[in-house]
């Protein structure tokens, strides 16, 4: 396939400015059985996150006498991309993504409160449009809060990309596939510490600096939508009862 033009007249291929996010919608408490859940639509991403726990840790030898262990399973549905029918089940990519997402939440969840237990996080990417791990993390934070699991913060995430010599936020799938670099970042918004960082592409030090600058300018917007989703979930119920 011919490489598509990613920058047209100073704008990106979908008309966005360099620092502009795609439309982002988060909904809390969308599943019935799960202890906590959230649904996120971000650009063309459609992703469900669910949380079970703290519950008994299976297998039991995984359990820790000091804290809850966190399991995370990130998966892409077989129909989630325009590419050929994908194979279901984990692959090498999804196993790595699951691991780095798990580490984000090991940082913020107050695991020491629940020794010997497990907290299971499930992320199902139903439709993928670039930046799925970041969208997944953003949704999981909402799902964990919805499950009543104590956390020191509500992490959010964003992928910053490089297109030719421009740094852009929230790369879409085309930009991800044909751009010159991709850097997913997850942070704890309260102290801005980096909880997930991956990158591939060729960045100079100044470009990295610029990438962080743009990402940190966008994080508060994402975080505000997470908080709003949680408040709305309980406010909606207030409306239902006519208050």
């Amino acid at each position: 396939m011919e490489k598509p033009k990613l920058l047209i007249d100073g704008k990106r291929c979908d008309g966005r400015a360099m620092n502009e996010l795609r439309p982002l919608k988060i909904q809390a408490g969308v599943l019935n059985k799960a202890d906590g859940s959230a649904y996120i639509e971000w650009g063309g991403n459609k992703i469900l996150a669910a949380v079970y726990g703290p519950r008994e840790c299976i297998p039991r030898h995984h359990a820790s006498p000091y804290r809850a262990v966190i399991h995370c399973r990130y998966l892409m549905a077989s129909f989630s991309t325009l590419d050929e029918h994908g194979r279901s089940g984990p692959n090498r990519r999804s196993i790595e993504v699951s691991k780095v997402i798990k580490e984000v939440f090991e940082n913020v969840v107050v695991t020491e409160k629940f020794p010997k237990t497990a907290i299971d996080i499930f992320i199902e990417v139903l439709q993928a449009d670039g930046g799925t791990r970041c969208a997944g993390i953003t949704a999981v934070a909402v799902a964990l809060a919805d499950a009543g699991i104590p956390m020191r913060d509500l992490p959010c995430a964003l992928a910053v990309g490089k297109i030719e010599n421009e740094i852009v936020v929230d790369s879409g799938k085309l930009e991800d596939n044909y751009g010159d670099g991709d850097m997913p970042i997850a942070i704890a918004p309260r102290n801005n510490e980096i909880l997930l960082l991956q990158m591939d592409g060729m960045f100079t030090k100044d470009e990295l600096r610029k990438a962080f600058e743009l990402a940190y300018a966008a994080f508060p917007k994402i975080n505000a939508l997470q908080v709003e989703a949680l408040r709305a979930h309980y406010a909606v119920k207030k409306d239902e009862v006519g208050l």
Partner: protein
Amino acid sequence: MEILDEIKKDYIIDLMKKNKRPDDRGYLDYRPCTVEKGIFESAEGSARVKLGKTQVVAGVKIEMGTPFKDRPEEGVLSTTAELLPLASPTFEPGPPDECAIELARIVDRGIRSSNTIDLESLFIEKDKVLMVFVDVYVLDHDGNLIDASALAAMAALLNAKVPKIEEGKLIKAERIDNLKITQKVVTCTFSKIGSQIVLDPRLDEEKAMSARLTLATTPEHVCAMQKGGKGAFTSDELINLVDVSFEKGNELRKLLD
């Protein structure tokens, strides 16, 4: 096991507070490191890296194959890592776990994103490309498997020779040209222990660390990064590590000559 680790962890964190590392190294020093190329005849390329007491080998096999459908004009690069059970009591036999997969994918990402192997140069004819398999085997685990593995993979690639191609077939017995390598990618891995950041963690330091950060570099660019572990870094800490990675990366690059 876990309880003993917790005790050792407290000791290491205490030591760091006293501005010391368990083996008296500077915070940004590598352990003694050696690279040997061409240690196996069976592979098209191979290398052994010893980094302190950590030891890994890498083999490169080159085969004829079909390209990926979405990249019909590019050769194929595949990188794996095996955490052999003989290398550590914590490594279990069986398919690669998340740690082995992450390790392989970090090594792969550095090589791939910097175009260290020009994949287009591996195109032979329609539906026929060269496939380069880089497999890293960890033989002895004393920490910082990422840097040792990336170094071994890079050394094995530099050592690799492409077999002769006749009528679209590989003549395995005749190795002629060097595999075309455009530059040398190396990784620098840092551990955060307490509030201290150290380069090239030993295994005992890894057990005490809250997080690690790997930067893969070419002489001018950072070409891959990966944070691991439950701890956190600030963006300032990260930016400060960029120059360190270029400088220390150059030391590693010299070992590859």
